[in-house]
């Protein structure tokens, strides 16, 4: 265990920016998904009759619409995260590396 390297990383401003923005973003997206999913589960648990209601004049029901919607939401949120992680977060992470290499 090399304490100087550890201290250097921890005190690097890019590192704290990276950890803060990444964890805020990760938790934010997780919260959106958890709320939507457990909203769906709560409806299933406490008001299941609402799920079989048709949307508009067609046959598609609220439950089926919501289920497919959550599948699409997963894909969308994952894409959002990957886009941000491969861009912004990797740039920050690279600058932590660069700072170490310069020393």
């Amino acid at each position, binding site marked *: 265990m090399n304490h100087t390297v550890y201290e250097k990383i921890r005190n690097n401003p890019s590192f704290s920016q990276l950890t803060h923005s990444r964890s805020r973003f990760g938790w934010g997206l*997780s919260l959106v998904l958890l709320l939507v999913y457990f909203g769906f589960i709560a409806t299933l648990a406490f008001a299941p009759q609402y799920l079989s209601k048709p949307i508009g004049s067609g046959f598609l029901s609220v439950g089926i619409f919501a289920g497919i919607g959550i599948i699409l939401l997963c894909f969308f949120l994952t894409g959002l995260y990957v886009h941000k992680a491969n861009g912004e977060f990797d740039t920050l992470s690279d600058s932590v590396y660069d700072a170490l290499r310069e020393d």
Partner: protein
Amino acid sequence: MRETSMSAIIMFFVFVIAILMVTFWAAKRTRTAKDFYVSGGRIKGLQNALAISGDYMSAASFLGVSGLVYLKGFDGLIYSVGFLVGWPIILFLIAEQLRNLGKHTFAGVISYRLQQKPIRVLAAIGSITTVLVYLTAQIIGAGKLIEVLFGLPYELAVVCVGILMMLYVAFGGVLATTWVQIIKAIFLLSGASFMAYMILNYLDFSFDTLFESAVFIRDTDAIMGSGGLIEDPISAISLGVALMFGTAGLPHILMRFFSVGNAKESRKAIFYATGFIGYFYILTFIIGFGAIILVSTNPQYLDLAQTSLIGGENMVAIHLSHAVGGELFMGFISAVAFTTILAVVSGLTLAGASAISHDLYANVFAKDDTDEMQEMRVLRYAILALGSTAIIFGIAFKEQNIAYLVGLAFAIAASANFPILFLSLYWKKLTTRGAIVGGYLGLTTVIILIILGPVVWGEIINGDALKAIFPYRYPALFSMGVAFFGIWLFSITDTSLEARKEREAYDQQFVRAQSGIEF
């Protein structure tokens, strides 16, 4: 009732043999133990995405979910949604840190700052239990498939599948199973797409007609909403929790996150995989509804009494393939389903067996003198032991719904593995004592509740679900709660010297997990 078809069987064999040849070709290139576990980091993003999807699109997903949708409509979608929602959470909160910590397995991650020996034993036991239940579900699917296709007795079919699977993993390793996963994922996605296309083509591409016809044939609109799969609010929440958090505790899925060398590529792999899996679940939903229209109304797919499907509801997708594409296409889909099961089972067996050889044997029992040759030998014995147990379970649980059994594997993973994994990354005060006590509490609680529940104590032992001692089919809400509480209580009350060191080590683990820099 339809006869077993020669052309379907020939097509089945041609396809299965082609896939096995790829396995043996890949096996020749597997040299070291590291190759065996994680393909030496040589797998690229899109390949890994297909392999991950391959691992996930198991017999339960394809046969089980389409069967459940056929039987219950909307209720099947609850499983599809639940199987997918865990993915993004792993990516957002767990995956980055795992790869930055540079550990091979679930056990490796959680023992990063805790005591190696007891933690690895716990992790191995948790992994093995999860894997066994998951394996059982797959092997039941394979047994039913062979039973329907060849007209063999179910028990014989299960034994054949089990032996084939053991040979396959013992000689191929993860590189071989990776290639099978990739090829099979492509065939499964295209086969399922074709089936969904044919259904929609038949209905002039109108989803309204799809739902309207299905409701008309069933003579009830119960299939459009919650229709009896979930009996009460507690069950709904408990199933929801298990599916959401179980994914992160599945050892064979976690292993996959390490297969890609480059961080950007591995993130893209998860993104593509989420797309493939989501698309696939939408297809299984269309297939299930389509089967209500095309299979349930056709007497050749029903048994002699004309009351239920040949081979049961798990064979819906197979019958539908015959309905839309004839004998040859049915042979193709059966072969894809079979290799799907074989490949998933191999991935699972390998994850379970490597928990035994890598975590139990190499790090615990033979810590001082172990070499790769010896570890590989233990790995092969472990494969044999797991395979045989799964065969026995597959026969004992033969009447169970396979999607439900996979749900149980998720419940175990969510109770025994997920809490420790999550807290080891996010909670500084976690100590070895807390992890051990809470982990075993979660694991034993979930196993006891499964045994006392409506399926094992009720249906299997006493022949009536109502005779169960524990009333709920889905135990995760209780057992995961017990695990978290146990870990919390026995960590905060731990004042030992080791506990202090473990808490101090958290800051360094955090920096490594966030930066990926070794120091």
